[in-house]
């Protein structure tokens, strides 16, 4: 395994490649997705998805609404299980295991692959309790260690100074941007390897959105991030890799994927080219 990793590193360094997408180098790939299809009560929303998501980078999923980006994201931590009538076929390899297998440990998967939702969803309780619930899942039991990590997580998302005197305040009283940062802190409590984000800035004003965006960029050091966004400028600013989704007839699929700079600079696909130049939406 480590020899393979070394080989991949030297291979990449030698070739000067920053784009690992679709080149199948397993150790540097977080998710290997092959022939994934998603259907809701037999209506196909996503089909023929083949993609490698690189480790330690930010991958942005772009494309118009309704082309299956969120469904795709929900497959990566099996949140699709919670949607009645949803069926998923294909393979998603994560740590060399197919997470779509029925007997795969979903709870453990969701602890490793965290998620931040489109609308901030702090639990209807205090700020403190929101983080305590997550830290409890991460195995923290003592009051002291829980408090220390709580502070660390809140500092990480730049919320500590704003809320340190109001930890017992209801989380729903925070502003939208603060709520979203709290949700990110909550997800980070489990020190996930991957963080999935579904349009995390779309419900926020531009200033809060900029802060959250900054935060996301800073998290790249610690975990792999997969983010759905409708904001192409944001995708271009923060992501290393970009995946373009499109509707093909009745069902969504991927039309192009690659390094963000090359996808935005020299799109290979006509649809991508028109979409990012604003001609299609």
């Amino acid at each position, binding site marked *: 395994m480590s020899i393979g990793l070394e080989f991949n590193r030297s291979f990449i360094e030698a070739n000067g490649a920053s784009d690992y997408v679709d080149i199948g180098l397993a150790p540097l790939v977080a998710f290997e997705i092959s022939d994934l299809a998603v259907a809701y009560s037999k209506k196909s929303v996503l089909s023929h998805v083949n993609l490698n998501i690189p480790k330690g980078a930010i991958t942005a999923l772009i494309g118009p609404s309704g082309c299956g980006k969120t469904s795709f994201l929900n497959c990566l931590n099996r*949140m699709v299980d919670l949607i009645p009538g949803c069926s998923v076929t294909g393979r998603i390899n994560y740590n060399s295991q197919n997470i779509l297998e029925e007997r795969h440990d979903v709870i453990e998967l969701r*602890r490793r692959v965290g998620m931040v939702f489109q609308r901030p*969803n702090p*639990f*209807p309780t*205090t700020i403190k309790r929101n983080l305590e*619930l997550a830290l409890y*899942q991460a195995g923290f039991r003592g009051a002291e260690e829980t408090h220390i990590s709580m502070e660390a997580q809140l500092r990480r998302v730049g919320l500590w100074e704003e809320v340190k005197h109001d930890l017992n*305040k209801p989380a729903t009283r925070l502003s939208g941007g603060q709520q979203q940062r709290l949700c990110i802190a909550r*997800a980070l409590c489990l020190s996930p390897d991957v963080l999935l984000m579904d349009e995390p800035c779309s419900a926020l004003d531009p200033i809060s959105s900029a802060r959250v965006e900054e935060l996301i960029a800073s998290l790249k050091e610690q975990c792999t991030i997969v983010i759905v966004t409708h904001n192409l400028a944001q995708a271009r600013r923060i992501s290393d890799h970009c995946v373009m989704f499109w509707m093909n007839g009745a069902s969504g699929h991927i039309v192009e994927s690659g390094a963000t700079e090359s996808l935005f600079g020299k799109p290979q696909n006509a649809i991508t080219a028109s979409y990012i130049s604003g001609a299609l939406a």
Partner: protein
Amino acid sequence: MTYRKLPTKSGTLLTSLVWGCAGLIVCVSVAMLADILMSGVSQINWAFLTQPPSDSGRSGGIGPILVSTLLILFVCLCAVIPIGLGGAILLAEYLPSASALGRSFRATLEILSSIPSIVFGLFGNILFCDLLGLKFSILSGGLTLACMVLPIFIRSTEQSLQSISNTYRHGGAALGMNKTEVIFQILAPAALPGVTVGLLIGVGRALAETAALIFTSGYVDRMPSSLLDSGRSLSIHIYDLSMNVTGGDANAYATAFILIVLIVLINCFTVAMKDLWMRQRGDIECL
């Protein structure tokens, strides 16, 4: 934006009709309360609250009756809260209304909650007093009331669980919580205010109940020595004094007054608790 106004005449008519109905309801309730208050309040003193009744209730107090009522309520709540919460969680989280089992459960509860209380009384008499051998007792009475209150409580709790946004369920699942953890750590606390309101409606119904108790907890007006003793509830005492005991009207009024005060107190307590919880989760502004 322009909109069409109602023709003035029918508008005035409708408005006065609505106000008339509201006024009528308020007047009737106020008249009833005033009647009870004026006829009852003069009898109320510490002795009335603590002394046992004498001369079939014409004189003396309601001490043992108050104790029996609270004991019956206690037994009722002890049965209703765990079974009701369990049933509501089962319905809301595990039996979707689309499933055949879920549909039939809900329909059954709907029917049960509209059954007259006297039917519950007879059922309780057969099941608890006879078959289970509890005889006429506070236990039988409380359990019968529980049967009566459960359908209402389960439906209202289920509704408050269902009204909780799915985003919380998803948020919990995304943190690696299993379904039980999501239910008990996130959904149940969030549903608490709704649950208390459901419980309040149930308690109100239980305290007001006469028919179901006559056949189960019995008539005896002495101080109960255990839960297996027969005990008379406040509502039965009022019924007995006003229907069967000539010259018992004054004490009937006084007892009615105490019953109303009890209900108001329980109401205030529950609403205060509900406000506290809602404040904690941020639904109302902190004061």
